[in-house]
């Protein structure tokens, strides 16, 4: 082969791809560091309401989530088809919320506790009774900073 090419003009040498794995690894580490894995599987049906006056939840580590909604199909047989509360990976009762907040607080630094936010991820078809009970429990736990999780609404009412 080499012998036949000899007479032709010199070809450009191929660009070395030896450093490609390094580049990809850098990207990989960047994403691994930046991204927080989804740690809770949501077991309730969620269709969040829409709103316009939204604020972003900046510090994800300071947010505790409370999910409310009708249990998803595979859980209906056990937990019924009325809206239920989900804390972490379990279905819970309203009375468990105070304990949940206490545990969440213990996991944080003392200085960060006043900055903690409770994000209420509630299905829009839920009745207010359960929401009211949750709010009352949060007041009892003095977790007063809440955020009604919602999607951005683009069109006007």
């Amino acid at each position, binding site marked *: 082969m080499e012998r036949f090419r000899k007479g032709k003009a010199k070809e450009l040498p191929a660009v070395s*791809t*030896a450093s*490609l*794995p390094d580049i*990809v*690894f850098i*990207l*990989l580490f960047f*994403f*691994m560091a930046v*991204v*927080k*894995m*989804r740690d809770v599987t949501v077991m309730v049906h969620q269709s969040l*309401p*829409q*709103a*316009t*006056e*939204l*604020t*972003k*939840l900046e510090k*994800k580590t300071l*947010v505790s989530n409370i999910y409310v909604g009708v249990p998803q199909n595979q859980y209906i047989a056990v937990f019924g088809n009325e809206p239920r509360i989900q804390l972490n990976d379990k279905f819970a009762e309203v009375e468990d919320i105070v304990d949940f907040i206490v545990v969440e607080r213990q996991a944080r630094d003392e200085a960060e506790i006043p900055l903690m*936010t409770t*994000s*209420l991820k*509630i*299905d*829009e*078809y*839920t*009745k*207010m*009774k359960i*929401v*009211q009970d949750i*709010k009352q429990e*949060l*007041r*009892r736990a*003095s977790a*007063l*900073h*809440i*955020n*009604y*999780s*919602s*999607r*951005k609404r683009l069109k*006007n*009412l």
Partner: protein
Amino acid sequence: MRKPPEIPSSSLADIAFLLLIFFLTSASMNTDMGLERRLPPIAPDVENKDTPPIKERNVFIVLVNKDNQILCEGQWIQIGELREKAKEFMENPNDDPNLPEKKLKEVEFFGEIPISEGVISLQNDLGTQYGTYLAVQNELVAAINELRNDLAKTKFGEPLEKLSKEKQDAIRDIYPQRISEAEPKRVGVQ
């Protein structure tokens, strides 16, 4: 001695790409957003009886029933009208005697300025749908935010979020977010 052959490393890039794609897809990059509110702290048992009652003209009453209908100051309204109503109430441009009274107060950058005494009172039924409740809250917050933004634009020529913290605080003093939620009624629950 013969040199042992080198292990080919050309597939390393493929493996790394595979990992990269796995992390990209499994990661949740979505940012959480929502309507921010503060709950009132639990009232102490001994109620302070000395606080003067709030005058009727200073309260903007919004009621939501179990069928998600809205009663605002005694009138059935659609949710789309609520924002304008709330703005009119908080602003009271013509000093209407039925709308809230104003008190002169010293505010930085503005000097002495009349500030509305109005309070928005929201009461819902336990059978109200959460979606409606949030929409109503959103309209009330939006009304106050719009008033603040308008004031920021007329006074400083810039939207509220672009102003310095002191100026933002001054505007928040002029249009405070006074939305109080009454204990819900237990009518529409089975």
